[in-house]
């Protein structure tokens, strides 16, 4: 009811692979330094958040060149289309220059997960 | 000074009883504002308790404190003149003159006075006179969440309190005591 923080994974898209639970107990320390790319070409939402904030936000800020864009600017389908078809048409070269293919996968994952129709409910506080 | 004469202010509290929901914000605000030590309070809420038989029930809350009477029994009985009334009708205690006889406590029909043992003074509502000086309203009125409490000069026909009293039925506590309180309740 309060606040608009939506954090977490959308339902039905589990990040839990088929790692045996016994092995899970022995998983040590930090997860991998690099992004985990699953079988569906999914990226890392956490990497994506960092990239979105550090790179995209340079232009997509209120009163800046690209205008404000946040994950909830579009729906999940719209984000999918944006990454698969549109590919930042308004300034195509920026995309090619600024981001590697891998980074785009991460950003896509993050934006879809937190899109305006993401199934993660708002929380309190 | 006469009522309605317009020369002097007459401060009064008017409470819309329906709006008080017993949050007791006023009780704590007063304690904080006036540094009133536990266990005494300058103000309190008179709770009627649950009236009636289930499921036809009723309950009311009446904020109360010193009524700042026009004819205060406390002033009458005070042997040293420590209790006095200001020109705006606020009943005050000059603790320098007080000898601690506690006659005023007995005389008050509203049990509005108590002994503050920590500071060795008589503790009672002062209508937050120190705030009035600064153009502020009493702490209890300011914080009243239900918007039940109203405060002002009844001698000013444009004031909120004067208008409330003009347009609504009101009552005071123990009117038969003849004290003429400045603390009114409206429905």
């Amino acid at each position, binding site marked *: *009811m309060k606040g608009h923080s939506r954090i977490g994974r959308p339902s039905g898209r589990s*990040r839990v692979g088929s790692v045996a639970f016994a092995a899970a*107990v022995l998983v040590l320390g930090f997860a991998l330094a690099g992004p985990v790319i699953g079988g569906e070409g999914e990226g890392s939402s*956490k990497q994506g958040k960092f990239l979105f904030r550090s790179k995209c936000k340079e232009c997509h800020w209120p009163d800046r060149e690209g205008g404000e864009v946040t994950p909830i600017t579009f729906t999940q389908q719209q984000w999918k289309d944006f990454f698969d078809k549109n590919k930042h048409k308004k300034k195509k070269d920026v995309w090619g220059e600024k981001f590697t293919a891998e980074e785009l996968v991460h950003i896509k994952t993050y934006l879809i997960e937190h899109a305006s129709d993401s199934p993660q409910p708002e929380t309190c506080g | 000074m006469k009522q309605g004469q317009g020369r002097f202010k007459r401060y009064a509290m008017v409470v819309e009883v*329906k709006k008080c*929901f017993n*949050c007791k914000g006023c009780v704590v605000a007063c304690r904080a504002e006036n540094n009133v030590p536990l266990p005494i309070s300058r103000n309190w809420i008179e709770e009627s308790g649950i009236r009636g038989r289930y499921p036809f029930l009723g309950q009311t809350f009446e904020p109360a404190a010193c009524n700042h009477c026009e004819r205060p029994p406390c002033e009458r009985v005070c042997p040293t003149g420590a209790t006095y009334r200001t020109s705006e009708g606020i009943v005050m205690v000059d603790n*320098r003159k007080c000898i601690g006889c506690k006659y005023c406590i007995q005389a008050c029909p509203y049990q509005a006075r108590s002994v503050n043992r920590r500071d060795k003074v008589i503790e009672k509502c002062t209508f937050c006179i120190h705030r009035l000086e600064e153009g502020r309203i009493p702490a209890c009125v300011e914080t009243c969440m239900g918007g039940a409490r109203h405060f002002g000069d009844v001698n000013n026909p444009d004031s909120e309190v004067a208008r409330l009293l003009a347009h609504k039925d009101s009552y005071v506590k123990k009117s038969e005591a003849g004290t003429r309180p400045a603390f009114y309740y409206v429905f």
Partner: protein
Amino acid sequence: MNEENGTCKESKAVGKEKKQIAEPGPPKSERGRLVMDRRRFLSLSVSAAALVAASGGSWRFLAGTAHGGLDSKTVQGATRVVPTVCGLCTNKCGALARVVDGVVVKLDGNPRHPKSRGKLCARGQAGLQLLYDPNRLKVPLIRAGARGSGQWKRASWQEALDYTAERLLQIKERYGPQGVLFSSTEEFQERFFLDLAEAFGSPNTIRHPTQCLVANNVAFFHTYGTVPLPDLANSCLILMAGANRAEAIITPDTLDLFENLHYRSKFIYLDPRYTVTASKADIWIPIKPGTDLAFVLAMIHVIVKENLYDRAFVEQCTHGFDKLVEHIEPYTPEWAARECEVPAVQIVEIARMFASAAPRAIFYYGRRSSFDRNQTAFRRALAIVNAIVGNWDSPGGLLPPQSVSLGFTLIPPFPDIEAPRIDGLPESYPLNNTQDGVYSRARENVLKGEPYPVKGWMVYKQNPLHGMPDRAKTQKMIDQMEFLCVIDVLPSDTAWQADVILPEATYLEREDPLHTESSIRPHVVYRQQAVEPLYESRPNFWIMKELAGRLGLGSYFDYDLKTYIENQMMTLSEEARQALREYGVWTREGYPKYGEHRAKGRFRTPTGKIEIYSTRFEQQGKDPLPVYQPLPKPPLGQFRLLMGRNAYFTHAALQNNRWLLHLYPENRLWIHPEEARRLGIRDGTTVEVVSPVGRGTLKAYVTEAIRRDCVYMDHGFGHTSPALEAACGRGVSDQTLIADAADEVTGGVSYHETFVEVRAAA
């Protein structure tokens, strides 16, 4: 009295000054000083070392000031007014702290704050007593004896933090980062605790929603795509079920409701108990507990059958109405009358009144939804009944919540986490917010040790022993931990069980990040520091940063709070920033707004419409429309135990506040006179309450204000921590008595499903 000239002189001077009001008096500054002279506050001049010496190394560290050698001090000087935000409950009311000579002398409401409008309730006014509570946590403590024995070793911050980091790393080494549970409650510095958890690599964060409003949020979110806010001030008919706004205060809802009582046509209130709110209602319906859903379903039945719904709105903006028509067929008023013990004609009449007053009608849903197994279905029904009368985005109806977007501070990406959550989210409760966790499931799995052991527990601003049902089970959960660290302000029952206690600074001693409240009037608040932290307490940001450094996670906290706040301000105009610095609050103009969303029309749901028929519920195998489950009846001679709260305390957090305790010293068991007579119980005498999981004694409150089939007690009493000198031993903890029960859809606790026996105590 004038026995001692010293004390009387000051008050006499005041008296004298006051007498001169009608005539010109001494200069104002002098009068101001004299007024201030009357103020005395306990000074905190004792050093921590002196405290140690006085206390002898045992739990008396936490002992009150009477033993500590503190003196009384008169403060004088200029008053500094510092904008702050009340921290005694979740409402975040704007407040102004008056500070004289480094002492907070009074808290006033902030008149510019759109929710509290210059008021503070009893708790807000009593915030001083939290700041100056003699039992406050003063220094870091490390457990020196058996868990719960109260043997503590006074530690320096260095020592306590080193030790905490060491233990956390040990657990990480042995069990993985998921072996540490991070549980916290919302506040302006909670974010840093959650960041630490994520940086640490643990998926196991648990917050308060599943003990409170998860069902409400999940139900409304999956219906509307958001949790709407009620425009109570402009509503003509308000229906309310159990949200006791007079005693469970929400701003501005409470203010809107009671300030405008005369100007509204009707306020109808459903509750098994005659609460203060009931006494203000035009109609109080003493509904049978657990049957609210039946009432609403019957209302929907009437509204649909008699074509009282907003046809145009339903067609344009909702999905699944046709399925609803079919679904509510059996839920007739006559059926509901039997379930609820409310006359059918009354249900019909209320449904008609509600629909005819719409769109200026609200079936208000409040926050807490943790009642019984029907909680999610009930909230879905509330969402539906509001939707079909078309009160969306309309004056006096439900409005889309607004907040202000704030700037961020860039930190490195958190590590991806392989381990599944201990509570099985999101798979176990796919409709929930994952990060909030599900407490009952988590506790269950921790006790089982499946799918993996959880042996470390970091607790921030939370009191699980008082929040979770079946206290004995929570105790077991604590007992099986290898390490428990509690960050708090007071020595709570949970802190008493800890291995390490870290004293946090209270809200009056901190500058906090900006915060935006979801509201119909979007605004931002800026809590500024009124006084320096007392004793050795520290703000949570500092604690987290220090811990992070020792855990090798320093890069995630490589900034200071000032920078964090400046970054937040970057999205705001200069005018807004100025307002925040000067007044502590900035509200965006032009709100509440009506009709904008209604015109554009896309809801943040899969269908883009208000989902009367929830596609996501269906997708996850839950009832897509609310289905009523009758609750089991209490066995003969037993009662359903209800719990709730009053206006003087916030959950289990404030019972040690002496100013508040003075208003309400203990909780009592509400019981109907007929039942009391039957059991030989007199008002004010002690009774024993026995449940399947515990027992306790408290005084009885024999009253007509409750139904015969249930008993009630306030939540939050029955503290056992001896360090809470004022609160310890008063009343009974409802959580000792309430058995573990949760809603199937959201895992939200069902606090009202326990049956108890009541006996007069010998």
